[in-house]
């Protein structure tokens, strides 16, 4: 059985094949354009994801804290106006935190909730004393907020009794190794002798120096918060949905609720600016490619004037001629998107082999997400089709007699 194409694609493909040089030129242009867009998009998406990943590697997506306390001072007797001024925040517990935790866990999009008691302390060993943050956690639950087990350089991420997990910088500063003893002293005069059961390196020197994980009850008693927690850490399914989740929780509890997006507003703004400039570049490339396709097809329409006249004389309608040229645009776009994606994949491989992080790891993975190929195919085909619109309409309107008389 022979493959028999319908009229419009048959003629369109034949015209493209016949105009070899022109076809190669627009294909090259489209391929280049698609490659630039796919490459840039994949690169920026990956790098941005890495940055966000790194930031969220040591942060909860959403944190619930007690409402901030403020001084309210009446100005006039009637109390119509008052001044609200901030005051120093003391360590407080979230009221009825178990209920709040349950509420948060039930909220759609929230995948994990972990109570944390945190407060300042000093780590003392011999003559040395370091300012640290005592973190009382349920290790099992906290792991679902920060993947501590991935950062452990010694021991496991587990706390019980007086077993604690400390950071690698603190261990170095105080000369501590696994199973060594370490005293923590608190501003309220309490102190406790801890045993180091694990050492982590979270990739952030400050946190490696400051965080000491102990059990929830131990931190509660040391920090004078019996039965209380200072914050609830949350993980959400979609990190970019963290803000709406935080907003809903704030509305439901009137507590202080902050998403990582608020805490890292500057970073997000920078990422957004990067996306904007990427979009700008993409738009320019799309416009240039569209102009390229359109101009080559306009020339082709003029060159094919005679053929168009012949086809019309043989009964081809204006609509059929229109289709012939629209299909040419679409085919150029579609084929360009395939070749362009292949070129982008090659570029990603080459560049990921060349550019490496300080630790020798590739700066980005040489992989191309299928959704970007699909995006390129859809966009390039649509652009091809749209760019062909003007030439195609010109072709359809062409007077068949003119072509046949000459």
């Amino acid at each position: 059985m022979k493959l028999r194409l319908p009229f419009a694609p048959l003629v369109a493909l034949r015209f493209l094949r016949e105009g070899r040089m022109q076809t190669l030129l627009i294909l090259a242009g489209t391929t280049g354009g698609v490659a630039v867009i796919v490459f840039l998009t994949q690169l920026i998406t990956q790098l941005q994801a890495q940055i966000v990943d790194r930031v969220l590697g040591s942060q909860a997506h959403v944190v619930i804290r007690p409402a901030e306390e403020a001084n309210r001072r009446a100005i006039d007797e009637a109390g119509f106006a008052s001044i609200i001024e901030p005051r120093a925040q003391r360590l407080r517990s979230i009221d009825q935190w178990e209920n709040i935790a349950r509420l948060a866990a039930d909220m759609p999009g929230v995948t994990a909730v972990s109570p944390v008691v945190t407060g300042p302390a000093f780590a003392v060993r011999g003559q040395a004393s370091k300012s640290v943050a005592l973190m009382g956690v349920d290790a099992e639950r906290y792991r679902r907020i920060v993947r501590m087990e991935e950062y452990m350089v010694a021991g496991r991420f587990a706390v019980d009794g007086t077993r604690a997990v400390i950071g690698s910088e603190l261990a170095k500063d105080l000369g501590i190794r696994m199973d060594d003893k370490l005293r923590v002293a608190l501003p309220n005069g309490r102190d406790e002798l801890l045993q180091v059961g694990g050492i982590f390196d979270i990739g952030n020197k400050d946190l490696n120096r400051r965080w000491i994980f102990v059990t929830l009850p131990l931190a509660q008693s040391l920090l004078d918060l019996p039965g209380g927690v200072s914050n609830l850490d949350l993980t959400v399914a979609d990190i970019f949905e963290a803000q709406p989740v935080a907003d809903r929780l704030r509305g439901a509890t009137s507590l202080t609720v902050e998403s990582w997006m608020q805490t890292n507003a500057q970073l997000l703004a920078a990422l957004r600016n990067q996306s904007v400039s990427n979009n700008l570049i993409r738009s320019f490339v799309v416009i240039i490619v569209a102009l390229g396709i359109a101009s080559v097809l306009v020339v082709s329409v003029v060159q094919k004037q005679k053929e168009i006249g012949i086809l019309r004389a043989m009964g081809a309608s204006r609509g059929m001629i229109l289709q012939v040229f629209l299909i040419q645009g679409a085919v150029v776009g579609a084929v360009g998107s395939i070749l362009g994606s292949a070129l982008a994949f090659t570029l990603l491989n080459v560049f990921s082999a060349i550019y490496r992080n300080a630790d020798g790891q590739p700066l980005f993975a040489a992989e191309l997400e299928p959704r970007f190929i699909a995006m390129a195919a859809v966009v390039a085909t649509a652009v091809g089709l749209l760019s062909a619109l003007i030439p195609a309409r010109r072709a359809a309107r062409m007077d068949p007699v003119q072509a046949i008389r000459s």
Partner: protein
Amino acid sequence: MTTPVIELAGLTKAYNLGTPVETEVLHGIDLSLAEGEFAALIGPSGSGKSTLLNIIGLLERPTGGRLSIGGRDTASLSEAEITQLRGRSIGFVFQFHHLLPAFTALENVMMPTIIARGRADDEAEATALELLDAVGLKAHALKKPAALSGGQQQRVAIARALALRPRLILADEPTGNLDTHTADDIFALLREFNRQSSCACLIVTHDPRLAARCDRIVRLVDGRIADDRPAST
């Protein structure tokens, strides 16, 4: 009496209508062509032969008068209906073969069918091969027009004009570009198909020898029919 294949009454054509350079090139043409009739259209250069043929072939619209094809008045037809009527009932042969260079001889002959039916099919291909065989070009079916001689190209064009078995063949100087011998061959082919399928043929020619071999000679002078007589007298 059957309905004429074409019937023109008081047909006029003016170019650049409504502008200072307005020129009427056809001034009231009355003409009708019956089924099976084989007529020559002759006349001096610029007399309006091609214009008349293009109007009858529905490639151009007349300015005034009436044009009926197969009994249908064409004035009321839409652009789409005109295009369809042209494709299905009229076959063109031009002075220059006007074959599509990107397609083989066979594909060129199939093209009217592809256009009419949307795509090619086995039957269309068989018919096209038969036609190529009839014009003596079966062996050249898969060649592109550029690989054929002028006479061969014109034969392919004739086969193409016959593909949909049209009721009317319009040929504008089909032999104008060929040597006498080849011209005779081409003319004989047209004549033969005319006999076989009893389609009406209107052939523009400058060659009095060929005109004399038609049934009827219509002479156009300055956009008017100067005389219209049987060829034998």
